Every structure is written in C-alpha cells, then in structure tokens.
C-alpha cells in the first residue's frame, strides 16, 4: 500500500516536471521562430538597399553623404547580425533613419519620384520595414512570455538546471530617432 502511494507521488512529480519542461521548450521555440521571421525580413532589407543605392546614384550627385550614410548603416547592420537582438536592433534603427533621409531627399527629384524602379524599391522597403515592426511586436511578446515563465514559480526551479536563459528584446526605435532629420532647403 505504502509502496503504491510513494510510486503515485513519484509519478505525479515526474509528470509535472515533464510538463513544465515541455512548456518551456515550446515557449523557447516560439521565440526562435519569431526571431527567424525577423531575420528573413532583415536580410531582405539588406539585399534591397544596394539596388536602391544603384538606382538613385546617377541622379544624386550632390547628396553623396546621404548615400554613404545608408551604405555604412547597412554594412553595420549586416555585421551586427552576429551580436544578438539588442545590437542588431540598434544598427537596424540607424539604418531605418538613414533610409528615411534618403527617401526625403528623393522627394526633391521629380525624375526619381516618377522612376518605376525607384518606386518599386521604395514600396518593397516600406513593406519590409512594416513587416519588421509588426514581427518585432510578435517577437517581443513571445520573449516577454518566455522570460516571465523562466523567472516565475514553478518553472523557475527547472529553468536554471536545464539551461533556459533569458532572451533579449528586439527594441523599437525611440520616438525622437524615428523622426527623420533632413535638411530640405535644397534648391
């Protein structure tokens, strides 16, 4: 009789641990999946930018510095890929700012504004940027859910031993940086 009681207790405890462990794995996989989604879009953006720079180069003799900033910001963003979400987010926000300046300058060139290729690239970059920002909401929500789980009872007791560690948020740009600061007083 006692043996049965002990066996039942052991079974319940082990079963509980398995459920908690599986729950954490599911949540961690969701974080990874959401991050993979963002990475696809970031890669797409990095691939589109050289085309855009190529397309506007000929028209933009005077704003070489704008193009240089975009190219540099892109290079930074690409190399930040290996340094985790926090660094990557910073580099990407810089790139977003540089791109906005570029598109603001494009507004000054009627031929560029009518150029089908530029329009198409602008649409592609706009949608990619929107997709990144919507994916970011989803990613941060999954990270928040996962981080809360590994820090709260009862999962906290198995998170440490089984190597579940905190994940970083992919931060939104601060409002001040999101506003493009471009000198529009060009002839």
């Amino acid at each position: 009789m006692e043996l049965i009681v002990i066996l039942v207790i052991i079974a319940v405890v082990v079963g509980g641990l398995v459920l908690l462990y599986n729950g954490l794995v599911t949540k961690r996989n969701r974080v990874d999946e959401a991050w993979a989604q963002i990475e696809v879009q970031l890669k797409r953006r990095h691939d589109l930018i050289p085309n855009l720079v190529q397309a506007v180069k000929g028209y933009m003799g005077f704003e070489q510095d704008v193009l240089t900033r975009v190219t540099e910001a892109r290079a930074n963003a690409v190399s930040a890929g290996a340094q985790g979400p926090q660094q990557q987010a910073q580099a990407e926000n810089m790139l977003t700012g540089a791109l906005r300046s570029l598109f603001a300058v494009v507004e000054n060139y009627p031929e560029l504004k009518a150029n089908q290729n530029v329009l198409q690239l602008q649409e592609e970059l706009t949608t990619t940027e929107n997709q990144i920002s919507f994916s970011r909401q989803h990613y941060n929500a999954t990270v928040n859910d996962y981080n809360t789980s590994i820090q709260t009872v009862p999962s906290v007791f198995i998170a440490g031993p089984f190597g579940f560690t905190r994940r970083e948020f992919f931060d939104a740009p601060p409002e001040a940086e999101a506003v493009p600061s471009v000198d529009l007083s060009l002839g």
Partner: protein
Amino acid sequence: MATFYDRIAENRRNSILLALVVVGLLGMLGLFIGWAVAGDPAAAIPSMVLAVVVGTIASLVSYYAGSSLVLRVSGAREVDEQSAPQLMNVVREMTIAANVPMPKVYLIDDTAPNAFATGRDPKHASLAITTGLLQKLDREELQGVMAHELSHVRNFDIRFSVMVGVLVGSIAMLADFFLRFTFWGGGGGSRNRDRGGGGGLQVIVLIVAILLAILAPIVARLVQMAVSREREYLADAAGVELTRNPYGLQRALAKIALDPEPLEVANRATQHLYFENPMKKLGGTSALFSTHPPTLERINRLRALGGQSPLTDIAQALRS
C-alpha cells in the same frame, strides 16, 4: 478610458449575448408551437429541442459552402504579387501583425471603394477589395481597411454572421410554417381542445404561439442587424490595434462614406459582408435595420479610443 482590449472583450460579450437571444427565440418559438399543437408543455419539449438542433445544424452546415459562392456572385478575380504588389504587401504586413495565415486576395472591378472578407476560419479566408478602393486610398488607409477585414477573419466574424443568418432564417421558416398550418391547415389546437385538457389555458397558449410566430422573425432580424453593427465596431477597434495607427482607418472610413458611387455588385444578401455599407444610395434602411453603424459614429469611437474629441462632420476626418 476604455482600452482596445476592454472594448474588444465587451464587443465579444455583446455578440455572444445577442446570438444566445436568437437561439432562445428559436427555442421559445419551438416550445410554444409544440405546446399549441400537442396541447401540453411536456410534449412540446421535443419540438423545442428539434427547432434548436435543426437550426443549429443548418447554420453549421452552411458555412462550408458560403465563401466561394459569395466571391463568384461578386465577380471577384484572384490576384497575386505580380498583378497587385502593393495590395499583397499591405495584406502580408497585416497577417504578420494579426498572426494569421496569408488569405487569398481578390479584386472586384468596380469603381466604388469597398472591401469584404469571407471564409469560415483564418485558414480558409479570402479578402476581396474593389479596384476603386485600390485607386482612391493611400497606403495608410488601405492598411487600415485590410486590418479591419483581417480582424473579421481573426475574430471568426464571418462564421458567426453566417450562422446567425441561418438561425434567423430558421425562425422565419418555422414561424411561417406554423402560421400557415394554424390558419389553413385546420389545426391541431382545436383537436386537442376537443379532448378536454386545459381549455382557457390552451387558448392562451395558442395566442402566444401565434404572436410569437409573428414577432419572433422581426425581433430576430433586429438582433441580427445589431450583431452585425457590434461586429463592425469590434473590427474597427481590433484593426487599429493591429496597425497602431488610428488615422489610416478613420480617413478610409470618411473617404468611402463621402464617395458618391454605390457598389453595383452588392445586394441585400451580401451587404453585411462589406467594409462599409454598400447600399447607401438605395435608401430606405432605418438605423435599426442597418447592417453597419453610422460612419461618423465609427470614426468617433476610434477617436475615443485614442482619447480624442469627437467630430461633428465626416469630412473633418480626412484632415487627420
């Protein structure tokens, strides 16, 4: 101040309540008709159960066939990334925000700006928009409309409205059948009175059954329209929650309301599906029987969510 989440939860509760009222009406009609015909309340229970079960099954079956039929009736053609790149991009953005699969996207050749969503669940969803909408709205406004439509998809509104529609239809059919049976069929009611039984009570039951048969279809229709209007508010609120930009949707609502062209492919059967009531130029529908809330009220509810003061004229929203 009510947050988006409060508003969405409240709307969902209201919709469920209204649906229960319709099912309750159907059951009550079944009960009283059974009572009047069979002459005793216990014998009426099976007829009540039958009415509810048949109505529910009919509505469950119907949503499997609905969407392809609606698209065909509206003359919609499917588009892809090549034929409508910006539209597809905007829809894809919204599917990411709403965390739903990419729906099929259709274009309807009509210069009146409007849109609708159909399909029984997010995996089988289709969005249809008119060419007029694509031409007249800017990117932000288009995003607002697509967010509204995908919210319908995510909230299972289409399934819901189809099922409520069939329930309302069942009520109308049952009431109609009973009234014909009573007045021309030479009814069960008198036969039961001959057997003795309730006498005065039996007459009252018969009168209640007849009154219910007359009133239930009207009440059910009112409830259906109220559900439809609640769902529009809910989809507006949920749409803004997706885009995080209330102005696109507000401007789109105003632009479509102020557009003079009626949608030619819409009719009384499909009007409740659309983003904004397509029947505006046909006139004759009062507020109670309307499938869509007044546009100004929709805009002002969105403004209230963002803590802004209400507008007095739709055109003011175009400048926001």
